[in-house]
């Protein structure tokens, strides 16, 4: 009987730990999506979080400064739609830029396409950062 009770208790504790780990992973991923590097900061990796925050934010700002465009979700234009998805992978910078009226897209600027590239790649890199945060929060780290 004690063995059975201990097993049940251990199973319950294991489930609780698993739920806590999932919650922690979810919170860290949401933070990383919201602000680049915030997920790593939540997991206690300040140096990595700081590097991601600085580099990805700088890439986003450079994209805007180069006249890049914040693309709308246009289903008729698949590439525009995908570019919009990529840009929304950095949530807070995208919202701030959108609310601030930035990212109208200076089509005649020499750097227009470069700007788009910086904006899109910054979002895609942040997606990789979010996946890394998920792995770390679940305890799967690279040796």
């Amino acid at each position, binding site marked *: 009987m004690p063995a059975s009770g201990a097993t049940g208790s251990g199973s319950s504790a294991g489930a609780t730990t698993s739920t806590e780990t999932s919650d922690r992973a979810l919170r860290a991923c949401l933070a990383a999506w919201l602000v680049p590097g915030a997920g790593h900061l939540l997991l206690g990796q300040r140096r990595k979080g700081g590097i991601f925050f600085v580099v990805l934010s700088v890439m986003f700002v450079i994209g805007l400064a180069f006249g890049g465009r914040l693309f709308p979700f246009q289903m008729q234009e698949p590439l525009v739609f995908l570019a919009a998805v990529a840009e929304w992978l950095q949530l807070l910078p995208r919202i701030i830029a959108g609310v601030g009226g930035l990212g109208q897209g200076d089509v005649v600027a020499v750097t227009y396409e470069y700007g788009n590239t910086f904006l899109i790649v910054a979002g895609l*890199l942040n997606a*990789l950062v979010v996946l890394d945060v998920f792995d770390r929060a679940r305890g799967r780290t*690279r040796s």
Partner: protein
Amino acid sequence: MTTHLGVMILFAACVSTVFGTLLREQPRDQVRVGGRIFVSLVGGAYALGWLMFLVFG
């Protein structure tokens, strides 16, 4: 900095920094991997540019 080469170097620096930080844990290894990625990106683009110039130019 708005020359093609300048923008490419800026882009490669940002991308290689993120990948280097993502792929390795130790700062020394991160710098090494990031540097390798940076050189590959810039060198590859430079070589491809020359190749296109020689073939199509």
